[in-house]
């Protein structure tokens, strides 16, 4: 928790670049915080990564895609659970974030789905994930890989 507050503060002060948890780059005003993912068993299963994407600028930004050396097909997906309790997952399409707003990629909702892994996701390592924005902007964040049973970025 202490680490979280510290890093958030640093990010807010715009002094940070490239530490493992938050990142600040590319489209100047996009801030990615609390990125994390779960370790995979081998390479056959898709992985998932989570984070908060905040638009600290004055203009809307639109997330149009992902890229990472870790997976051939990274894509934002959304899990939905209907009134009967049935969960399904589908591509989320483009995501526009209004000025001052955040989008949370979190378990059971939006997530970066990492299909066709090129290597196993190993606990304790990190991997670079690049967010592609409308207009050509990019933000790359180093995503820590936590245990398979992790529930959030603090685990």
């Amino acid at each position, binding site marked *: 928790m202490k680490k979280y507050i510290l890093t958030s503060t640093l990010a807010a002060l715009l002094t940070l670049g490239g530490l493992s948890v938050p990142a600040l780059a590319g489209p100047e005003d996009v801030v990615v915080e609390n990125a994390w993912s779960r370790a995979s*068993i081998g390479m056959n299963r898709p992985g998932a990564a989570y984070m908060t994407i905040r638009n600290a600028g004055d203009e809307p930004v639109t997330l149009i895609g992902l890229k990472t050396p870790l997976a051939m097909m990274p894509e934002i997906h959304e899990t939905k659970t209907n009134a009967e309790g049935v969960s399904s997952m589908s591509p989320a399409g483009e995501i526009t974030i209004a000025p001052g707003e955040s989008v949370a990629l979190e378990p059971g909702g939006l997530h970066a789905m990492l299909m066709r892994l090129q290597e196993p996701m190993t606990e304790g390592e990190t991997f670079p994930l690049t967010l592609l924005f409308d207009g050509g902007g990019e933000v790359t964040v180093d995503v820590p890989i936590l245990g398979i049973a992790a529930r959030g970025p603090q685990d």
Partner: protein
Amino acid sequence: MRRRAILGYGAAGVGAVALMLFVGWWRVDGPGAPAPVGQLPVALTEMDFRLTDHEGNAVGPETLIGRPTMAFFGFTYCPDVCPTTLSDISGWLDDLGDEADEMNVVFITVDPERDTVETMAEYVGYFHPAIRGWTGPEEQIARVADGFRATYERVPTESGDYTMNHTASVFLFAASGRFVTMIDYHEAREFAVPKIRRALAEEMEGAT
């Protein structure tokens, strides 16, 4: 000419209204209506299925009678909901402490094609040790889902693989096998643990 046009529009309007009414009926009360919500699982004692646990033991609904049971569906190739559910359950079991030892906790795959006994063994090994992984032939899985009033469906993905849509609720049964309640996927943990304690308490009542 004009009058005919007006009549024509009038008839088209009546037709459109009739169509809307029909579509409304079809979707709400007619054959297009969604399946009734809130269909509850039958008691474990009324179910009949044969599966294999992750250690290779033959199991069925009778395996669960005598202790309260927490059961849920999923598949090990599921990147989001299933590890989250398994982690949540592991957390609840940690909160319950010793009480967790008095429960059956069963993760039943809806993807037996990929989730073999060995796959289930490896997967459940990453979570709370009380969690058992059950798999079996597709027709047996279908019988389990039927008893639980759960659903699952295979859906192809763009990557050429497939994923499974499935009921993500966690089901709680008393030691007698009677269905007690379920924990919905987005329910907060502070509601989940008391619900589990309720299922555990029913065991005490049944025992006296």
